[in-house]
């Protein structure tokens, strides 16, 4: 029987949640790396027993941990993230030039065909790659050194490269997203990059439809249709049907189009999920009601999913990397909150139940579907 493993990164450690295919009884293990911030944990598609975790601390810096037994045991691997060329400067919050400085790894993206290849998106924005299971890391500097780089500015959480999507059809195509620079695409395995932000409009920047400078919160793709991407921007839910060459808004009837995560149903490329958040100055759900919104039409028409979710007095947030889906026949959807709850739906979002309620603030949620 199939089973699922949910990998949860929190402000104070990592947790591994296991269940069989019914997804109604959960075994919770952790905290791993207790006391450390775990921005992301993700498994290798090529070898699901191999997991990578980004462990960091204001005191002790960055550590990368690797497990080869599905999270039971871990070992630290390489943590040397050095920009490949002279780092240069980007804009600081006050508009002055600020030196590029490595702060932490936000996102780890293991490659689908090789257990030893994994990408890392870091703050200050850069893309790194390891081909030896995380023991050593080399930057792909073409993104950071894009001609627009000196004009990039950090979002409130830092200038992070938070999204990496590897095109399953075109092995040389990579998408990345940076707050607050925007979305970028490489068609040569990360050597060169182009901004793919046409169609985005962002109030709060001097040129609302600028080539770069947009606060993209998250991108999502269904592997069967890699030309189509969905985006949760700071404000606005967006869609492209041409791999980012042009975007159009699909916020439709959402109660608010501010939010962080966005994800796609495992078997229905037009079924997508977001968690509307009141605003950028109110990082909690509208009316104190935690609602996932689902569109079965690739955007524009949205329905609230509320069964099993708190519908009063709820003032948590759901961060950009804290939603994931499994690929069981009945697609499971999972998300974690800054209040420490991890919710699961075993029926594509129709009903929800908490797996755990009182973890530290959840930074990331990933799911592995295991046979």
């Amino acid at each position, binding site marked *: 029987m199939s089973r699922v493993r949910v990998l949860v990164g929190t402000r104070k450690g990592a947790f591994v949640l296991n269940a069989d295919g019914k997804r109604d009884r959960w075994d919770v293990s952790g905290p791993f790396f207790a006391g450390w911030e775990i921005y992301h944990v993700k498994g290798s598609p090529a070898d699901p027993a191999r997991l990578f975790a980004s462990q960091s*601390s*204001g*005191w*002790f*810096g*960055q*550590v990368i941990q690797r497990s080869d037994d599905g999270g039971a045991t871990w070992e*630290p691997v390489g*943590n*040397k993230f050095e920009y490949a060329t002279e780092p240069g400067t980007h804009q600081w919050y006050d508009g002055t030039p600020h030196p590029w400085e490595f702060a932490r790894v936000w996102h780890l993206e293991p490659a689908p065909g090789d257990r030893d290849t994994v990408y890392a998106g870091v703050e200050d924005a850069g893309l790194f790659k390891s081909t030896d299971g995380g023991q050593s890391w080399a930057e792909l500097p073409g993104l950071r050194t894009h001609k627009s780089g000196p004009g990039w500015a950090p979002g409130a959480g830092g200038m992070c490269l938070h999204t990496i999507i590897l095109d399953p059809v075109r092995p040389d195509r990579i998408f990345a997203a940076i707050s607050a620079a925007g979305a970028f695409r490489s068609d040569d395995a990360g050597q060169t990059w182009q901004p793919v932000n046409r169609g985005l409009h962002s109030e709060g920047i001097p040129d609302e439809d600028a080539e770069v400078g947009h606060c993209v919160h998250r991108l999502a793709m269904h592997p069967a249709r890699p030309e189509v991407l969905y985006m949760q921007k700071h404000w606005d839910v967006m869609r492209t049907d041409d791999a980012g060459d042009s975007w159009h808004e699909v916020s439709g009837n959402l109660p608010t189009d501010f939010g962080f995560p966005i994800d796609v149903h495992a078997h229905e490329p037009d079924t997508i999920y977001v968690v509307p958040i009141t605003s950028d100055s109110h990082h909690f759900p509208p009316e104190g009601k935690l609602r996932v919104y689902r569109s079965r039409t690739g955007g524009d028409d949205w329905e609230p999913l509320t069964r099993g979710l708190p519908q009063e007095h709820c003032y948590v947030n759901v961060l950009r990397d804290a939603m994931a889906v499994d690929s069981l026949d009945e697609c499971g959807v999972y998300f974690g909150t800054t209040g420490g709850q991890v919710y699961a739906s075993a029926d594509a979002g129709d009903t929800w139940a908490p797996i755990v309620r009182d973890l530290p603030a959840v930074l990331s949620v990933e799911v592995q579907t295991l046979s």
Partner: protein
Amino acid sequence: MIRVVLPAHLRTLAHVDGEVKLQVDAPVTQRSVLDALEARYPMLCGTIRDHDGGRRRAFIRFFACELDLSHEQPDAPLPEAVVTGAEPYLVVGAMAGG
């Protein structure tokens, strides 16, 4: 032997209990002690000082013999009591809180 006391999180990371004891050739300095520490426990590289240049991380302090050595030159000799093992060399995570 040089005795080194690590903060709890780094003891966990390095899988050690209690003090670390290191054989360090003379002259015993902060740099030579940290070099020996990182050679024995490579997972500590980058957690106490930068990978290159050896700059101390901002929220780390080095104490010994009731002295704050954090701002001393890395190649300055350590106190004789540390060299003889009478006193430990302390790697300290700065306290934070309200």
